[in-house]
């Protein structure tokens, strides 16, 4: 598919985040893993080693740890704008799980799709919008007093 056919958006942030103060957009993260399955070995390691530190470093994020019989361990992240994102962490080591969590913390929760322009401004032009007389000599199209020629 060509890039024009894919969904796209402009560069933006949730609620002008960072203009006033920075607010971590990840509000809730649930780590779902199995107590026995081989695939969630790394997640179990992470729960023993790193989850408390992660929760302490991110007081704005509520971390839920829920062991339940499942084959595929996953991390469900919920963002302030209401979006939910799932990341599968099968066979990942403790370090890799932490990397996934850090990535989720840093994201804004907006859809990850093609961004049309890598820059954004709220005041698009200081000079003003283009019109046929921009960058033209001031004499072009100028209307003079009509009685000038008569005198």
């Amino acid at each position, binding site marked *: 598919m060509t890039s024009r056919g894919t969904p796209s958006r402009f560069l933006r942030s*949730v*609620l*002008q985040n960072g*203009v*006033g*103060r920075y*607010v*971590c957009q990840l*509000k*809730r993260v*649930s780590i779902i893993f199995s107590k026995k399955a081989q695939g969630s070995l790394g997640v179990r390691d992470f729960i023993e080693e790193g989850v408390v530190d992660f929760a302490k470093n991110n*007081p*704005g*994020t*509520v971390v*839920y740890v*829920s062991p339940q019989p499942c084959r595929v361990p996953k991390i469900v992240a919920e963002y*302030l*704008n*209401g979006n939910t994102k799932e990341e599968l962490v099968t066979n990942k080591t403790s370090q890799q799980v932490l990397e996934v969590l850090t990535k989720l913390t840093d994201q804004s929760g907006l859809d990850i799709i093609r961004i049309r322009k890598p820059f954004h401004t*709220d*005041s698009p*032009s*200081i000079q*003003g919008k283009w*019109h*046929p*007389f921009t960058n033209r000599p001031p004499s*072009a*199209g*100028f*209307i003079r007093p009509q009685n000038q020629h008569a005198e």
Partner: protein
Amino acid sequence: MAAGYMLNRSALTLRLQCQLVSRSPSLTQVREKKRWMKAYTHLMAKKLKLEGPPPPKPRWQQPNWDYHSEVQAFSSRLHENFSLELLKIAFINPCYLQAEQDRRKQLGVDSETMALALKDNLQLSEKGAGLTNSFLTDWCRTSFPNLPHEGVECIVGHLTSPSVVTYVARNLGIEDLTMSAEFPVPDEVLNSTFMAVIGALEESGGAERAAFFLRDFLLTQLIGKDLFDMWIVVNPMGLLVEELTKRNLPLPEPRLIRSAGASTVLPLYFVGLYSDTKLLAQGPGETLVGAEEEAARVALRKLYGYTENRRPFDFSPQQQRQQMLLQSVSQ
């Protein structure tokens, strides 16, 4: 003969069905092609089409929910020191209390033994709304000293309108924590909850913290907004004449400055407004009347100091601001 055959057949199928029904609980699992699956999915799809999708569930009814930690995280996420009791009160709406009492009555719980010891957020909400209004008005007055009273009212009205406030509240995660009788939370309930949160912040951290909160989350919505999007002026020329007479300036005189393509489908006229032979402003338009109106709007924006290329608002953090003030005092 035929009737007997039919009867025999129906009895056969009935027996088969009976067998199927009796077989299913006894055998835990049958390894075969799941021929019932297609009919089942078809039925479920039909049901979904008839009944529509199920109603949305509030977050607190879904798994993994701990109210206390959610409230605590809300407070520290916004870098504020809310008092948690006040914050919890701020989220309880009177409609929720009413619904909860009705529910208890229906269940037959005695109201004396199981009294609802909860306060609602009415007081906090009123306080927050008052603070919001006064702060926004003060801020508008200081940043746009030339703006008349009506304009200030319109800007404040836009910022405190339900659409803007609920948009901000939804993107701050207030909707999940709000206790309301209905779900999805109605706009007016969300509005009053947001105001109650501001009231709680004022009570726990002082009016200054609340002002910074409002500046960071509500005033940022003003970025990229034009003055006349919020303030609907029907006759800008009349307003300009009023303003100029107030300032003892000569009345504006519209003159056609430039024109192009007058006989085409896309004509362009530039009208300049002169006051005392000085150019106040010029504006483009497709018709002469439109161009004159646009020129008047440009002139008003210049008079009020709300031009597009004005200096951006100051949103620097609190500590940095204090340091800058100290520096300016020491110099």
